[in-house]
């Protein structure tokens, strides 16, 4: 994927049973950096990520990834364009090992094609490379020692790290993270935010939904404040988060 390819939303609207989750929503994401999305519950943050990743279809409006319209693409196709996401309710395969979760996440595996699954031609060598890359990613997120454990045996915080490792394993350039630090120990949250900064330094675009204002302030280069399905403010965190009317809307 080219470096400057990124998401652009034009006039997105989505409602659920008459409740407007997004209203005529316009947004242009930068091609790299760290962007935080904040807003009260029900502001439409998760809906936005679901629309960007193809898990929901908008009622109207368009999403572009670079020049490409993506609203009619299936989730797996958008993922293959270099977009990875995590879920608010962590989604992992809890019954298999931590390493298997990451290996599963690697893209374009030969052994995932039926012919090669049966004949195993070149699959062993590929899986060894796959294992090395996956172990390296587990080292990066600090789970190397847990590689052989079942994912379900990890603590909630460790599972958040694993979800991040799975995202990275897809080689995505754009990471959309739904509350990556919510509900984890503050020390762990710091480490996750530190990883996000490292990923930014590697040229990735990291978009994360967050409730903790201090996390946004310390990490994000840009913040988008949403309320009732609209952007009510966006810009540099130090400026936006000082404006009292924004904070009032946010704190409700």
């Amino acid at each position, binding site marked *: 994927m080219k470096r400057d390819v990124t998401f652009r939303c034009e006039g997105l609207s989505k409602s659920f049973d008459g409740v407007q989750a997004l209203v005529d929503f316009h947004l242009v994401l930068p091609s790299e950096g760290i962007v935080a999305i904040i807003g009260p519950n029900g502001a439409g943050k998760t809906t936005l990520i679901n629309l960007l*990743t193809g*898990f929901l279809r908008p009622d109207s409006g368009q999403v572009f990834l670079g020049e490409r319209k993506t609203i009619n693409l*299936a*989730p*797996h196709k958008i*993922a*293959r364009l270099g977009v*990875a*996401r995590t*879920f608010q309710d962590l*989604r*992992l*395969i*809890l*019954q*298999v090992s931590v390493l*298997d979760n990451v*290996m*599963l*996440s690697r*893209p374009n*595996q*030969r*052994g*995932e*094609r*039926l012919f*090669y*699954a*049966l004949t*195993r031609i070149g*699959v062993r060598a590929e*899986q060894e490379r*796959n294992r090395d890359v996956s172990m390296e990613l587990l080292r990066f997120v600090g789970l190397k020692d847990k590689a052989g454990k079942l994912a379900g045996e990890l603590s909630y915080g460790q599972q958040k790290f694993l979800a991040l490792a*799975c995202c990275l394993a*897809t080689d995505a350039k754009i990471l959309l993270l739904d509350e990556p630090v919510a509900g984890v120990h503050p020390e762990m949250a710091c480490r996750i935010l530190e990883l996000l900064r490292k990923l930014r330094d590697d040229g990735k675009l990291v978009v994360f939904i967050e409730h903790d204002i201090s996390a946004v302030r310390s990490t994000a280069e840009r913040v988008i404040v949403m309320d009732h399905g609209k952007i009510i403010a966006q810009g540099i965190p130090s400026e936006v988060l000082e404006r009292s009317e924004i904070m009032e809307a946010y704190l409700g």
Partner: protein
Amino acid sequence: MVYIEHILVLIGIYTILSVSLDLLAGHTGLMAMSHAAFYGLGAYTSGLAAVYFGAPFIVGVLLGMTVAAMVSLVVSLPSLRLRDDYFVIATFAFQIILFSIFNNWIGLTSGPLGIPAIPQPSIFGWTIGSHAGFVAVAAILAGFGYFVVWRIATSPFGRVLNAIREDEIFAQALGKHTLWFKVEAFAVSAALAALAGSLFAHYITFIDPTSFTVMESILIISMVIIGGAGSRWGPLIGAVVLVTLPEALRFVGLPSSVAANLRQIIYGTLLVIMMIVRPRGLVGKYGFGR
């Protein structure tokens, strides 16, 4: 002796059926009710090919597997877009439809009269007429079916199937075309069921629609669940248990009219007991209750 050999052949046939269904039910989490339909499709395809065109056993087997795999696409492409319960109903409907075709397309299948005089198979000039020979062929084919399923289950392809069973949305978010994986698994499973069907047709040398009813699908599902879905030996053990158990009842000395009905009662009771006491099956890792 012939009696024991007969049971061994049946175990071979049902091993292929339960192991191949387990690729869907156990490894992918798709409870297909249509397995007997593909079993019948294989039996009818190779039976008819042998009777009308004198096709050799191996040709009939390959033909049956191909037809079943192709027909599976007709079922899987629309029904695999449906969610769990609806998929079960869609495959159930397909099972009913195929049985009706076997039973009513008189011109092709002779309907309830069935197809008699299917020749015993000959492989490279060696005609398998003895029961011992059939035990060998059944064992080889069961081993082949088992090998194919286990090979797939332990590959990266199987890893994706497992992921689909546990969390399809996660797999999609990782860029896996989950529908296609399910369609492929369904086709392999159907083709293996057809293999069992060909073996059955050439072994019994007579087929009629009553062998391929929805009850047969339920029997195969029972084997998978009682043995342990998604496990290494579960479906095999399930096949052995559910083939031998009713045979053992013969020696209790019940009148045949009672014994036949008793079989159904036993399957039902066993399933209920297993669901309560051991939902993972005898040796299984994964339960269906979540």
